[in-house]
């Protein structure tokens, strides 16, 4: 795929993005429905039932309904996007996603005039999800984007990584990828997409608004109250690797900064 593609390694530091190994990306995950340990999703997510998967589309759209993944992606061909992935916990990875632009999925649904935000919801399968039974955080996990963020060409609905169908622990069968935001915005295993007028709830923001803002754009200048966000540890680097500086908007500043023109990013963090 072309080098001119947005998001592909044209960041400020001019560094070619080298993806982490499939093993790294599938053995170190946050997916609290399957436990809070980084290995828990890899160990427990085999129980996720992805058969008969449907996504409910509702709210301010002309064509609401229940869609299968293939219906939702009808006529679209997933492409590879190699993106930086920056977790709010100050570790990072490089992921070769396969997906389609969210905008291409939303447009045919007929977005109505009043729609200003997109809300997403993760599946809840208590019988298959040990973390849901333990109630470590409120479920279902929900997230949201402003409509212009959702329509940005960097924003993906991903259905795979490394050309493989999306592994369960990474959010099978379909998940969001918003590369300039902390990873928890990129909600996994989506079962509902709603076009709404008001800013929708976002799980971590609901749990602790002081620590997790609605926007949660990667920003080295805004510390998490409990740790600095100025640097990050690339996973897979071994015990002695140096940390590297975190880039504004995770390296996608040129592409997305204009979305936030005139906003105080310290306040809207």
């Amino acid at each position: 795929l072309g080098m001119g593609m947005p998001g592909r390694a044209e960041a400020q530091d001019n560094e070619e993005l080298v993806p982490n190994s499939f093993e790294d990306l599938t053995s170190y995950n946050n997916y609290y429905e399957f436990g809070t340990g980084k290995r828990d999703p890899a160990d427990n997510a085999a129980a996720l039932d992805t058969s008969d998967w449907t996504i409910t589309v509702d709210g301010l759209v002309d064509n609401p309904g229940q869609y299968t993944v293939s219906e939702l992606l009808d006529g679209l061909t997933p492409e590879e996007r190699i993106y930086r992935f920056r977790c709010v916990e100050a570790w990072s990875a490089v992921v070769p996603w396969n997906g389609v632009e969210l905008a291409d999925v939303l447009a045919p649904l007929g977005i109505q005039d009043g729609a200003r935000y997109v809300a997403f919801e993760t599946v809840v399968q208590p019988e298959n999800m040990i973390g849901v039974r333990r109630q470590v955080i409120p479920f279902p996990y929900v997230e949201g984007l402003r409509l212009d963020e959702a329509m940005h060409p960097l924003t993906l609905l991903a259905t795979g990584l490394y050309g493989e169908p999306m592994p369960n622990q990474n959010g099978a069968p379909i998940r969001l990828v918003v590369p300039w935001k902390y990873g928890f915005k990129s909600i996994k295993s989506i079962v509902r997409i709603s076009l709404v007028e008001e800013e929708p709830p976002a799980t971590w923001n609901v749990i602790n608004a002081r620590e997790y803002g609605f926007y949660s754009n990667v920003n080295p200048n805004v510390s998490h109250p409990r740790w600095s966000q100025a640097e990050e540890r690339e996973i897979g680097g071994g015990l002695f690797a140096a940390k590297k500086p975190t880039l504004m908007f995770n390296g996608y500043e040129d592409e997305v900064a204009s979305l936030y023109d005139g906003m105080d990013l310290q306040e809207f963090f």
Partner: protein
Amino acid sequence: MVQTINGWLRKVPASWPLYIGVSFWAGWVFYRGATGALGPNPVEALEHEYGQLAIKLLILGLAVTPLRKWTGITLLRFRRAIGVSAFFLVLAHFTVWAVLDVQRLAGVWADIVKRPYITIGMAALLLLIPLGVTSNNWSIRKLGRRWRVLHRLVYPAAILAALHYVWLVKGFELEPYIYMAVILVLLAARVDWSRRLAPIFGTSRA
């Protein structure tokens, strides 16, 4: 039964098996981290491994007295080695955090000052330093009664260590709360409640 266990325990050397075991374990986990066996983020894994064993050993040390009171089993001979091992692991936990995780002295200081859960962890470490330094026969003789008073610093240190853990996690995880609860129970077990409560109930009758 208790006598059999105590008799058996008396035959075990008081310190060196624990020192060798803990040192070997710490080296082994480090080796696993360096060779990729602890997953893609070995620094975090190593930090957690050392920190978790440290708090477990602190709890074991605090359990010695209640265990004797409740069951008659006495681990008193092992308590010094348990405490020194815990201190060693606290230092290892701190060193991994400072050297491999934060990596810069200025960053270490900034985190200690700015991040409450790190401030608390650091306070626990500082409280344990005089205990580590005086865990030898000479200090015990020299300090006399004051040694026992000094070593009560382990009580606040253990509470701070558990708080450090509770504060660190995202969302609701049971494990840090379990550590905190066990520590509080073990500390409460040291209080003579009938004597403490008698005057309160005695005077509140009026």
